C-alpha cells in the first residue's frame, strides 16, 4: 500500500504522519495524533460529531480524506482554548448546554464558524447554522442559549 510522510498543521502545531491514501482526517486525528476530542458517531456525515475546522470552515472529518487536508490549518476542539476557554466553551458550561458531551466538540466548532461570520446571530440563524449537528440529550434549547450568550460575551470583548 502506498504511504507518504504528510505534514498536518493542527491547532497551530506541525505534525508529520506516515499516511496511507485511504485514511480519513478523523482517523489521523484520533488514531495518529491522539486528538480524541473529535468524535466518530456515524461515519457517513449525518450527525456532525466529527466536525473540525479547516481554514476556519467546518468540515466532516469522517468524510474527508486526510490527504486533502495536508498543510492546511486544522482546528480541533483541543485547539480552541487559547490561554483560556473560548467564550463558546464558557457559555456551554454556564448555560448547561453539555450533557453527555459526545456532540459537544462538533457543536462548538460549528458554532465558532457561525460567530466568526455572523457575530450577532438571531436564534433562527443559530438553528440553521447548527442544523447538521445532532444532539440526543439536550433538546437543543440550551445550546442555542449558549451560542447567543457567547456572541454577547464576544461583543463585550471577552476572549
Amino acid at each position, binding site marked *: 500500500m502506498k504511504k507518504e510522510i504528510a505534514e498536518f498543521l493542527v491547532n497551530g502545531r506541525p505534525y508529520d504522519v506516515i499516511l496511507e491514501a485511504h485514511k480519513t482526517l478523523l482517523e489521523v486525528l484520533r488514531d495518529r495524533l491522539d486528538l480524541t476530542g473529535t468524535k466518530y458517531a456515524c461515519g457517513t456525515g449525518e450527525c456532525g460529531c466529527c466536525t473540525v475546522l479547516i481554514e476556519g470552515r467546518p468540515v466532516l472529518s469522517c468524510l474527508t480524506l486526510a490527504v486533502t487536508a495536508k498543510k492546511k490549518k486544522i482546528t480541533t476542539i483541543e485547539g480552541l482554548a487559547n490561554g483560556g476557554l473560548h467564550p463558546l*466553551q464558557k457559555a*456551554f458550561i454556564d448555560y*448547561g448546554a453539555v*450533557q453527555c458531551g459526545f456532540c459537544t466538540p462538533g457543536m462548538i466548532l460549528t458554532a465558532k464558524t457561525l460567530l466568526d461570520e455572523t457575530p450577532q446571530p438571531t436564534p433562527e440563524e443559530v438553528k440553521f447554522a447548527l*442544523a447538521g449537528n*445532532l444532539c440526543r440529550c439536550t433538546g*437543543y434549547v440550551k445550546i442555542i442559549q449558549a451560542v447567543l450568550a457567547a456572541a454577547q460575551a464576544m461583543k463585550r470583548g471577552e476572549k
Partner: protein
Amino acid sequence: MAEELSVVGKRLPRPDAAEKVTGAARFVGDIKLPGLLIGKVLRSPHAHAKVLKVETGKAERLPGVKAVITSKDMPRKLFNAAFWNMCLADPEKAGEIQDQFIFDNKVRYIGDAVAAVAAVDEQTAEKALALIRVQYKPLPAAFTPEEAMKPQATRIHDFAEGNLCWPHVPFPFGAGEVEKDFAEADVIVEDTFYCSRQKHAQMELDACIASFDAGGRLTVWSPAQLMYLARRKMANFFDIPEGRIRWITPYTGGGFGGRLAFNAEPICIGLAKKAGQPVKLEYDRHEDFVAHDSRTPHKMDFKLGFKKDGTLSALKIKLLADAGAYLGQSGMTTAVCMAFGLGHYRCPNTAGEMTIVYTNTPPTGGMRGYGNPEAMWALEQLMDVAAEKLGLDPLDIRLRNYKKVGEPSALLLPIQSLALEQCVEAGAERIGWKEKRALTGNGMKRRGVGMATMTHCSGAAPLLLEHGNAALKLNEDGSVNLVVSPTEMGQGILGVLAQIAAEELGVRIEDVRVVLGDTDATRFDIGSHASRTTFVTGNAVLGAARQAKGKLLERAAPMLEASAEDLEVRDRRIYVKGSPDKAISVADVARDAIYNYQQNCGQITGECDWESKVVSPPGQACFAEVEVDTQSGEVQVLRLVLAHDIGRAINPTNVEGQIEGGAMQGFGYALCEDFVVDTRTGETLTDSFTAYRLPSFLDLPEIEGIMIEEPDPVGPYGAKSIGESSLVAVAPAIGNAIYHAVGVRIKDLPITAEKILKGLKQK
C-alpha cells in the same frame, strides 16, 4: 429544611462540563492500551437460517489476525443479554428466559452474530471477516407477531410453541372485578393503539475494551449503565469470580436505556481471551441500528369504564409485544408498561394481560420511560375520548381520578408524595388552556391544544433491588473525595451528587471531587436506570456526608470551646450557631484529623449503604399546542409546556436540561422517529440517521419546563426524579392537540402527515 441552602438548588455548572467542552473527556472509544487489537463481528445476512458450517481457516491464516471466534470458543451457556435483571430476586420466576447463545448454530435475525475476529488493525479485521465462509440453510421466517403466531409459522426457538415467549401472562397487581364493573359502567371507551420501535440513538456507539493481565485478571471498559450488574453477569457467563474482574465505565455518550443489556461486551471478552491480548470492539452506526435493541413495540388494547360523573371504575389492558429474535428486556418493559398504565388513576377494578412473541427481527427492549410512554400513548388519549363522551374538560376528568398521597401506587406501596394537580394547574395556566380550548378553527391551518399526564418512579422499589452506596473522605485542604457508582451518561448525576455532599458538609461544589466508574475503587450500586440515582444514590451520599459532618463537628468542638450540637458548617467554615465571626475552617479541622501529632488521628470520612423501600413518584403534565395543515396533513408543534413535580430541584439547570431533552425525544417518538423492518425480508431499512430521522434544531418548538417543588419526605432535600419522565407524556399530548385542532385521532406511532390526511378524508 429550616435554614437556607447554599449549594443545593443552585444553578451550578456541572463538574464534567469543562472536560467535555475541551475534548479532554474520555469515552471507551478514546482509550488506548499497548498491543490493543481491533475486533469485528460477522453478522448474518439471513433472517432465519441454520448455521451448518463456519470455516475460519483462511481468516486465521491472514497475517495480523490474532483471534477468530465462533460458537466453539464461547461458553455453551444460555444467556439473556439484559444485565438489568440481576436486580430481580428470581429473574426466572419474574419471566426472564435464557434464550440466547453467544454464537448459535442458528441465526434468528439479519444482524445476528455468527463469528468475530481480532486483528492488529481495522482493515485487517475487516479483510478477515470477508474470508470467513459460513454455510447457511435458510429457514422460513416470521417478521410480525401476527405472522409468528399463525399455526403454520416457523419455530424461532425450540421451546417456544407458537413463537409465544410469554403467552397470556396476567398482570400480578390487578384488583377487583373488571368484567362485572364493565357491565355496570355508564360509559365505556376502548380502542387499539400501536407504538413504535424507538431507537435510543445515543451519539456514542457501543464499545468495549477487554484485557486480561498476566495473572489472568480481566479488566473491561464499557459504557454499561449498571456496571456492577454487568460485571456479575459476565462473571457468571465466563466462570470468573466477580473479584477477578475490574469493570470500568468512563463517561458514557448517552444511555437512554440502551446500555442495560450487553452489546459488544461478551464478544469482546471472548476475543481478548482467545487472542491473549487486549481487544477493542466498537459498533458502527449500521450495527447500532440492526444489532442493538430498541424500544419494544406493542399492540395495546385498552378498555376503560366510567361512572356518569367521570369516575374511572374499571381499566383493562391487553398487550401484544414483539420481542424480536431474543427476549432481552422486552418482557419486563411490557410488564412495566402495564404497571404504568394502571399507575396514576385511582381505579378499583383493574386487570391486564400480556403476550410476548418472538419474530425474526432485531431484539427489542427498554428505552427511557421503559413502558410508560407506550402506556400513556394509549391511556392518555382514551382519557380525552372519555372526557368528550362525558362532556367533561380533559383536565377535569383527570383531576377527578388522580391518586392522592397515601393511596397505593401501581406496585401497591403507598405514594409518598405527588403534586400532579399542581402540575396540571401550572401547565394549563402557562399554555392558556381555557382560552385556547374554546377556539375552533376552520381555515386551512388549524390550531389546537392538548395535554397528557403521567407519574413515573424515583427508583424501582419494591420491584427491584434498590441498593446504593457512597463513601467520602476529607483531605487536609478541606477538599472531599466522593466515591459513588452511578454511570455519568449525560444526565448530570456527577454534579448532583457533588452538590448534595457539598451542601451537607458545608463546602463548595468545587471542593468535591467525584470518583466513579471503577469497581476496584467504588462500592456497590445498581447504577443508572429507573430514574433512581438522585433519589437512591443521593440518599447514600447524604448519609455518608452526615456521618462525616458529625465527625467534623466533634473534632471542631473543643477547638471552638463549644459542644458539637451547637456548631454549624457553611461555606468552608465551622462556627457556633448565631456567632459566625468566631470560626475555624473545615480545612484546619480536616488537617488536624490527618496530621495530629498528639496521637489523636482519625481522618474524617463517611459512608452509607442505602436502600430505598418507598414509592415517591414524580408527576408531570405535558401541554402541547400544534398547528395542522389540513391540505398536507403536516403538523407543526408550536409549543410544549412540561410542568414537573420534582420535589426539589438539586440543580434547576440540570432539571430543565432533562425536561428539554426528554421532551425532544418525546417529540421524535410522536412525529418523526420510525424504525422500519421490511416485513417481507426482515431487513432493517432504517439503519442510518438519514433513514431514521432524529429531531434536529429545525424541528425545535418552544419548550418550557416548569418545576413544581413540593419536597418529598424521603428524597434527598426532598428531591424526586426527572431522568425519564419528560419523554413520557409528549406523544399523547400532541395526539390530543391534533384531535382538538382537526378532529382526527391517530392511534399508531409515529403520527405522520399521511395518517392525518387519511383521517381527514374519512371524516
